[in-house]
């Protein structure tokens, strides 16, 4: 439809609009951007993720005014970085609010992002034409994990120090270049002042810039194709005489006002935690982290923060014995390529799987543990191409697939719980089963999404007027 700038705005707005596409941006992304009207509770978490990002940046700015990334000891024998955090807590007026908002915000970010990703998973928001939105999202998730990891070293407590020591040492497991790689990352032979300063630079400047860029790209890609919805209906398929989707409503004011309710609800929970249980039972602010970092005293139990524990579980599950399970999986995959494929894919696929099977035994299980942990995140990038179902949304999937998604969720929680606990023999076996299920869910998707009886996708969204 032809858009003519017939009416020009007057006054200051007109002056700006003749030099900057303010009004067209407002129309294109707010007042004339049409979103499906059947969004449910799961659709709050995108705007909440953006809110938490802003919250972390603003509280972060105030924290950096007083925080000192210095691992040397002060006159009382306390590391300067640790003491500067306590300075913020005690002597900066309302510094404790800023600190607690930032620490609670870190955990809140992951709660919100996990729920946001789960929405994408169950409604097929990663399907064509939204693959790029999903990829930007996965990159954001990776950056978020890095940001949290770098940030956690900064308070310079026992858990900060030893958690960083363990995770950076994982990179030493990379074949050939491992040990040198670990020294390069740390800036020293052990985690120390050099590491603290560079992690500070990454946490405060590098990754936030990348995150902001990725979030902008994520939203631009979304607005290009429009949102999915819980029914998986493409609302742009049915438009009225003015070219407006029949099931679409302008984002502003309907979803801007709607999202304020989400923000208010989130704020109630968030500030209840900040003011009444900022330690989160030892999960948001770990008890051990109130002890200054001591390179000579290893804590009896080193565990990552709760939001990394599902992946940590998978890392610990990859024992020497487990690599045999991986060999068996690669052998089965080789068999599949040989029997079910033709030509280059038949030979190439089978050979690649056999090489992989051999590699699983040649390189240390420690290295494969790192690969499995990273792979658990990387595999999500491929979701748009793994899912071969004829429908997007879980609402049209067969009943047994809905159960499968349920098991996936429970499995993720179980892996998380096991990651918090010290390792036990029984726990390791359960984590191994959980790891196999997690990867099986994704890798076998091209198979199980082609099975079962799907319901037809409706023409129009299901919506109850209220």
């Amino acid at each position, binding site marked *: 439809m032809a858009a003519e700038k017939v009416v020009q705005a007057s006054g200051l707005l007109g002056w700006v609009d003749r030099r900057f596409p303010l009004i067209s941006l407002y129309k294109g992304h707010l007042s004339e951007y049409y979103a499906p009207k059947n969004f449910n509770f799961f659709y709050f978490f995108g705007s909440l993720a953006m809110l938490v990002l802003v919250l972390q940046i603003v509280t972060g700015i105030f924290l950096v005014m007083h925080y000192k990334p210095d691992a040397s000891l002060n006159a009382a024998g306390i590391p300067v970085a640790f003491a500067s955090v*306590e300075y913020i807590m005690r002597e900066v007026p309302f510094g404790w609010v800023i600190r607690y908002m930032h620490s609670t915000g870190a955990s809140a970010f992951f709660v919100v992002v996990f729920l946001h990703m789960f929405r994408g998973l169950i409604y097929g928001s990663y399907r064509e034409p939204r693959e790029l939105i999903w990829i930007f999202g996965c990159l954001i998730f990776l950056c978020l994990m890095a940001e949290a990891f770098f940030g956690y070293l900064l308070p310079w407590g026992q858990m900060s120090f030893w958690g960083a020591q363990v995770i950076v040492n994982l990179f030493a497991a990379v074949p050939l270049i491992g040990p040198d790689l670990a020294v390069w990352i740390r800036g020293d032979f052990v985690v120390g002042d050099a590491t603290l300063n560079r992690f500070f630079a990454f946490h405060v400047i590098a990754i936030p810039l990348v995150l902001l860029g990725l979030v902008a790209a994520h939203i631009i890609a979304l607005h290009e194709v429009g949102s999915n919805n819980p029914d998986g209906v493409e609302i742009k398929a049915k438009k009225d005489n003015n070219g407006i989707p029949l099931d679409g409503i302008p984002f502003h004011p309907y979803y801007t006002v709607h999202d304020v309710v989400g923000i208010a609800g989130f704020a*109630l929970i968030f500030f209840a935690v*900040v003011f009444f249980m900022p330690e989160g039972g030892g999960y948001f602010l770990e008890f051990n982290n109130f002890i200054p970092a001591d390179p000579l005293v290893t804590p009896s139990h080193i565990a990552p923060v709760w939001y990394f524990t599902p992946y940590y579980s998978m890392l610990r599950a990859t024992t020497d014995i487990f690599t045999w399970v991986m060999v068996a999986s690669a052998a089965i995959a080789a068999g599949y390529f040989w029997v079910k494929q033709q030509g280059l894919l038949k030979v190439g696929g089978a050979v690649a799987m056999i090489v992989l099977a051999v590699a699983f035994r040649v390189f240390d299980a420690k290295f494969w543990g790192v690969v499995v942990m990273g792979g658990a995140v990387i595999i999500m990038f491929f979701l748009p191409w793994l899912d071969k179902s004829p429908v997007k949304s879980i609402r049209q999937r067969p009943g047994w697939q809905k159960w499968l998604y349920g098991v996936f969720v429970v499995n993720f929680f179980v892996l998380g719980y096991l990651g918090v606990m010290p390792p036990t023999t029984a726990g390791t076996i359960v984590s191994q089963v959980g790891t196999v299920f997690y990867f099986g869910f994704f890798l076998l998707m091209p198979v199980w999404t082609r099975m079962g009886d799907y319901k037809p996708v409706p023409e129009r969204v299901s919506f109850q007027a209220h």
Partner: protein
Amino acid sequence: MKSSMSTLSIGAIIRGGSRMLAAAGFALLGSVAIAAGGAVKLDTFPTTKLTDQAALQNGAKLFMNYCLGCHGISQVRYNKLRELGLNEEQIKSNLILTSAKFGDPIMTTLNLKDAAEWFGKAPPDLSLTARSRSSHSGTGADWIYTYLRSYYLDPSRPTGWNNLTYPSVGMPHVLWELQGQNEAVFKTVKDHGQDVQVFDKFVQTSKGSLSTADYDNTIADLTAFLAWVAEPSAMARKQVGVWVLLFLAVFFLFAWRLNAAYWKDIK
């Protein structure tokens, strides 16, 4: 034991323990059967003390007299003690026992390097102990409260003292003159077919200047002070929090109804 201990009080504490064996002796009484990971059952600290200003002031006094000789609380400045209802004069004349100025952090004068030689480990700064000792067994305050009341005579230890909450601790029982001396009685119990020594009870072998109830109360005051030191803004946090949540509840109500008003148009 190195002999260069300068303060009389430490010597008195060591003598207050029973006869000292040579360092080569190992624990005769066996290890207390505690759950894997060192989960000891903790007593509950009476949290009413946290809002009792008299208790907090008494705790400050006790800390300066009994603890500051070895332990600093360097994250707190002397002038912050005004939040306990004391003025500058009172703090300067009663609570500053070193040459520190009113705005200085509360540091111990013990040389930490020497202390590491004498005790095996330098006495830690106690600014955050009430937070760092929290666990699933109880709060850090519970831990401190239990710890200071679970010392017992143990001739196998260099100080002559051992502690149920912190086995083989390097710290002697500083407050023995107040509590008196206890011995620990262990009993043999079967655990998974093995004979295991389990703590049964304390038996007082000599009286201190305080009764058990008074000693417990004194320790509660000291613990309350340390809990305050760990997070001085705790009370303010909860007070502000109530208003914030009240506001947010009202805000949520308005946001919800405003949203409903807009969405009435959508069919």
